[in-house]
């Protein structure tokens, strides 16, 4: 049975193959893609049949264990009803979309890139749906997020597409902190990777005997994670911004699959959060808020893709409500139907013009004239307020912007001297620390807190303050050094997992530093579109980025996971800080990559 799972690797292999710089014919690419979808699809059918036949459904399969420094990272598959719903959906829809794209993207420049990314995404979805542990789930989740970024920025020379992709990736990363923390807390609670099989079979009293604070944090981490991917309040605006790629990619991501990943996570972890009254209510409230806000925005949207985006988020809001009320099976059906329906709507969205050759058609004209909206029944002031808020997206985007960017600026300005000369800063800080250490043999972990805050400082600085690629990369390295140092100071035994993390990271860090040195004179506030000229460096940088930001493509991912887990035994605050650090550092690469290699240079 395990052999079947090899089929699920096919999309990854094909994706990597297509990402190589050899050009293939459109026909070959499509055939390869279809094969890489059909085989795993048949595999799933076989699995389902075998499972049903043996009566061991739902079932867990131990596929492999990767051992690094006496620490095992298990690959476990967990198959239940939800798994097959998502898997089936993934394969059916991606088959349709691939067939559609074959004609639709004909003669398009990025044909191969598109299919490569779609395959990568399919692999992510497979991983996510089959994952038996939270860590594997997180890996799939990250892949989905990253391929989403790549497809939003599919038109690399469109600066707006790239900045929208970057903005959405920010939200993803922010919410991913939740899932990462969730995975780590799970480790602590169950003393192994959080296995969905264990969760689903766990009796309620077993949960109530566990550490309630940790459980509570786990619930809220999970909810935080779903907010980003499934675009729920307060992040429900991003899908309308994400409609920048080719229509089929928008359809499969924001109509159908990616956007339902959060709901799927909630279904998976239901036994955990349903025990916590506050979390259950929170899910319902989030669903309701999303429903309220996005249904108003949906009414107001006058571009068809934006309208579908908000319609999607409001339906997912309904799913959240259904979940909090406990109708898991209903949600599964709803999810399945909704994904198919929206995917179709997005794919045929260009035909809205033709179908309303039509506004002048009597029937349609009358229908448009007679549209009823409940806010019209309100007093004019209220109605206008709602419309106004809807048309400015409830100021949500700009508020987040304000939150993320503006308060930092004066602080940075005042610290200009220090920031301007980080080496001096580092030396001064180092000397100070040594002096303190020498005069007061204080507990070492105070020092490690000092270093972790330094790391955070450098992370944020590199992303918000530095305008030159090399400076930013340098500060990234400082940040890395600082948090590595701080973990080491906390507990020397962490060296093992640090090793697992650093071995793949260091060579790529050097490559990334060299590349950023090559482009040290470019200003990161503008786009430079160097990707066409320096393709090799761009691709190398992309690989560096994937490794350094802990994408599940190297052992760094496992190392990161192990490290955080062990850290949690020592200090939860420290773990959270380092998790934030890791996430922010991941963003930096997207920023540098986008600004250097994509977009279109501004007038100068």
């Amino acid at each position, binding site marked *: 049975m395990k052999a079947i799972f090899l089929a699920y690797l096919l999309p990854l292999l094909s994706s990597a193959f297509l990402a190589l710089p050899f050009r293939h014919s459109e026909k070959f690419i499509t055939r390869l893609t279809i094969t890489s979808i059909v085989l795993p699809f048949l595999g799933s059918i076989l699995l389902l049949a075998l499972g049903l036949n043996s009566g061991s459904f739902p079932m867990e399969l131990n596929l492999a264990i990767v051992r690094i420094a006496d620490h095992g990272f298990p690959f476990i598959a967990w198959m239940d009803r939800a798994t097959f719903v998502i898997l089936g959906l993934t394969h059916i829809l991606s088959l349709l979309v691939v067939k559609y794209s074959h004609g639709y993207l004909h003669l398009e420049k990025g044909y191969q890139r598109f299919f490569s990314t779609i395959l990568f995404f399919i692999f992510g979805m497979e991983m996510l749906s089959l994952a038996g542990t939270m860590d594997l789930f997180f890996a799939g989740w990250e892949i989905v997020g990253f391929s989403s970024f790549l497809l939003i920025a599919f038109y690399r020379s469109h600066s707006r597409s790239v900045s929208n992709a970057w903005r959405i990736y920010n939200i993803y990363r922010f919410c991913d902190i939740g899932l990462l923390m969730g995975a780590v807390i799970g480790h602590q609670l169950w003393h192994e990777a959080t296995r969905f099989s264990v969760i689903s079979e766990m009796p309620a009293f077993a949960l109530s005997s566990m550490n309630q604070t940790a459980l509570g944090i786990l619930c809220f981490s999970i909810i935080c994670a779903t907010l980003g991917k499934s675009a729920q309040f307060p992040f429900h605006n991003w899908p309308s911004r994400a409609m920048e790629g080719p229509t089929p990619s928008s359809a499969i991501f924001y109509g159908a699959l990616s956007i339902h990943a959060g709901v799927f996570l909630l279904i998976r972890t239901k036994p955990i959060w349903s025990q916590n009254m506050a979390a259950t209510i929170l899910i319902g409230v989030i669903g309701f808020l999303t429903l309220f806000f996005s249904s108003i925005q949906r009414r107001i949207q006058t571009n068809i893709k934006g309208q579908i985006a908000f319609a999607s988020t409001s339906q997912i809001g309904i799913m959240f409500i259904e979940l909090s009320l406990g109708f898991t099976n209903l949600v599964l059906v709803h999810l399945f139907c909704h994904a198919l*329906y929206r995917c179709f709507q997005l794919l*045929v969205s260009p035909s809205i013009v033709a179908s309303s050759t039509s506004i002048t058609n009597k*029937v349609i004209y009358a229908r448009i004239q007679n549209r009823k909206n409940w806010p019209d029944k309100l007093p004019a002031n209220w109605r206008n307020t709602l419309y106004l808020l809807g048309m400015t997206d409830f100021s949500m985007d700009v508020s987040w912007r304000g939150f993320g960017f503006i308060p930092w600026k004066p602080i940075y300005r005042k610290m200009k001297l220090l920031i301007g000369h980080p080496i001096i800063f580092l030396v001064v800080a180092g000397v100070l620390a040594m002096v303190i250490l020498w005069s007061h043999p204080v507990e070492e972990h105070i020092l490690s807190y000092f270093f972790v805050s330094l790391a955070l400082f450098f992370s944020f600085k590199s992303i918000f303050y530095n305008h030159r690629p090399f400076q930013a990369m340098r500060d990234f390295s400082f940040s890395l050094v600082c948090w590595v140092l701080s973990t080491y100071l906390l507990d020397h035994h962490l060296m093992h997992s640090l090793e697992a993390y650093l071995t793949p990271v260091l060579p790529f860090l050097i490559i990334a530093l060299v590349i950023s040195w090559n482009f040290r004179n470019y200003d990161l506030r503008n786009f430079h579109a160097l990707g066409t000229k320096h393709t090799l460096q761009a691709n190398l940088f992309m690989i560096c980025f994937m490794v350094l930001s802990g994408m599940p493509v190297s052992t760094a991912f496992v190392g990161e996971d192990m490290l955080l887990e062990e850290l949690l035994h020592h200090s939860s605050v420290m773990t959270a800080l380092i998790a934030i650090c890791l996430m922010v550092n991941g963003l930096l690469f997207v920023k540098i990559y986008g600004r250097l290699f994509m977009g279109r240079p501004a007038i100068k």
Partner: protein
Amino acid sequence: MVIDMDFLNEVARDLPIIRPIKEFIHLNLLLPYQHLPFWEALDEVRTRFEAHPFSELEHYRKKIHDGDLPLPLLKKKLEALDGIDTDEAMKFIMEGHFEFIHHDSRMGMLHECWNELIGINIIELSDGMLIKWLSMFLDQGIGHWQMPESDEKRFYHCIQHLLNTGLVKPRPFTRKNLKTLFPASPEEAISRHLEFLCPDKELRKNYVIESIMTLRGWAGLIYNVQKAPHLLPFGRKIDLIDFLAVKLVLERAWIEQEMNSKETPQFPSRTELDRPNTANKKDFLAFRACQEALEEATYDKYIQSMISHPWPGKALPSIQAVFCMDDRETPLRRHLENASSRVETFGTPGHFGIDCLYHHPDDVFPKKQCPAPTPAKVLLKDVPLHYSGSRKDGKELHHKHNQPADNLIYDWFFSYLNAPASVLKLTRNMFFPLAFKSLENVQEVKLPNKLKVLNADSKREEKTGLPEGYTLDEMANLIFEQLQLIGFIHHFAPLVFILGHGSNSENNPYFATYGCGACSGRSGAANARAFVEMANNPQVRQLIKERHNLEIPHTTHFVACFHDTTRDTVEIYEMENVPVESLPDYHKFKKYLSLALYKNAKDRTKDFKLVTYQPVSKQAQKEVIRRSYSLFETRPELGHTGVAFSIAGRKEMQTGFIPGHPAFHQSYDPTIDPDGRLLTTILGALVPVCSGINLDYFFSRVDNLRFGAGSKLPQNIVGNFGVSHGTESDLLFGLPFQMIDQHQPLRLMVLVEQEPHIALSALQSNPMVRQIVYNSWLQYACYDYKTDKIYFFENGQMILKEKGQELL
């Protein structure tokens, strides 16, 4: 300094001409520069818009390699140009490297100064809001909830009202700043905010220009709507002043919100802004020489092919057919004439001289069915024969669920109910497009309707103020005029078919670009039917005989048809009226026609690249029909791709043919036109329409980024009137990449069969024609049928070019 409508009109010169997407009309994308000679305009435009108005260097190299662009000719062209060294230029063309970098057009220098001062892209913030507001205000039925009072107030006041009455003010507005931000009138707002945004008086005009140009597409649409408000069925009051006022309000509001101190940015000086053209003149000239040489070589090739294929001559026709002069009809006509020696065809603009508004019974408003520059003269109504209330047709059912339902609860239910149907529809369309043709017909006219043409007492319709049809006199004049124009006055066969054309394609926002250019991008079926209605009227025939001494025999019967250029199918209307004695001819014609359609489909299939097999005729027709039904087909047909020639003359003239460069064929008999009156009429329609099509394709192809709409794939429909990239971009204009990627840009050559002095004098009376030809936006040539010589128009004269002479 005041910013008033006069100044804005001046600015609007540089705005693209955008109409609502369903009204797509091919126009010279550089129409505002048409008063300049072609090359000067290109030189001007390439610096102004930072565009590269030529094909890539590789394109010309390939042409040189293939022998389409002879090197000696290129040398000759280079030598004729001043300011360029021939050898150097040749070296550049053959081996040089040329890369044109487009910069981001969203930002101007002055706005960039603000951004730098504040550190955040203020303009992106304010433009993002403005785009949304505009699309909400102008919406034509996509949004479920209309902006309150958008049908009464003008844009500025509508926004002002919303902000003032709203109980909560969205960022960046507050209760306090609203009063200062929104003075009573938009003019006041403009002058007040300009003072703040651009304290330097000298630079204010530049600031305004920049503000408008960063949203060229939207401003273009607004300017066109302002000039012709009927373009939007749900009327909206908006003009450039509103647009500018709200834009400045937003810019100021955001700047004040984000600004920490009271600094003002350091604007560059005027001299810096009006930098002289620094782009490389030499490259420009080298490209120009390439383009000129390529054009001349192709024109020459065409003339050679015309000479080497003489007209075989024909027996007396038993069937005649009048087509649109459209280049997509030309091959069909050729196939039809090859099918039988007794078929004769004619070409004329596809509105058949009927400048009308056409009102379909299913429609609320009439639609314009004549060339874009011509005003409609009559209103023609289709009256259903058996009226059955408001009809729910297939269109309604098919596309009901491609938009989220109005009501959230419905939407919820539909997502359950429609899921299986959606998958089924998709699968079916993708794998068996022909088995289930559940497609709407965008452009066909649904019968049974009766077209009301006769309006003896010239009654006028109230709304439009146009007469509801023609009087008998008008009809007689119109029919005679049209027949005379195409030289169709000698022999009338028993059956004369009048073919209008249009196109049906699925999932294609640009469907209107495939329509009939002479019918404002719609189908010409209604015009064909109106023409037949008039020509079959015995009273009209009687009048024609009395007035113009032209007898149309009573045995002759006119039949209206509709040719779908995407599917290559023809629908014949009211065949029950065909007289019994003509039925054999009728069936023969149907046979010939289906043969010709097969052949035409086969030729077309070869041009579609995904089709690898050598299609058998039947298969080919299936393939073209499949393309029209497929949801994922971005190239349902190739439209006017490659169009480079326009020929007006008798059959003898219309034998030339170069693969990849179709031609417009207008029938014209020079022998009945000694004073050039008819030629003037013909050129009046032919030159603007054909050069509009040609130059639309030309500029979209050479610089798709600046003049075109980019790729079709990520496009999003906004408010039923435009397309944008993603959800909040500028409106797109021009043609999308998928429509022009096979196009080989050449200027149009108009070749008429006439003596040179008449050909020259025919240009004079119509100022538009004169402007286009004299500024060489196309190449004009004439073939003197009396002396058998060819003359080319150069510098205001017709210059003799020896026929058959090897150019080099």
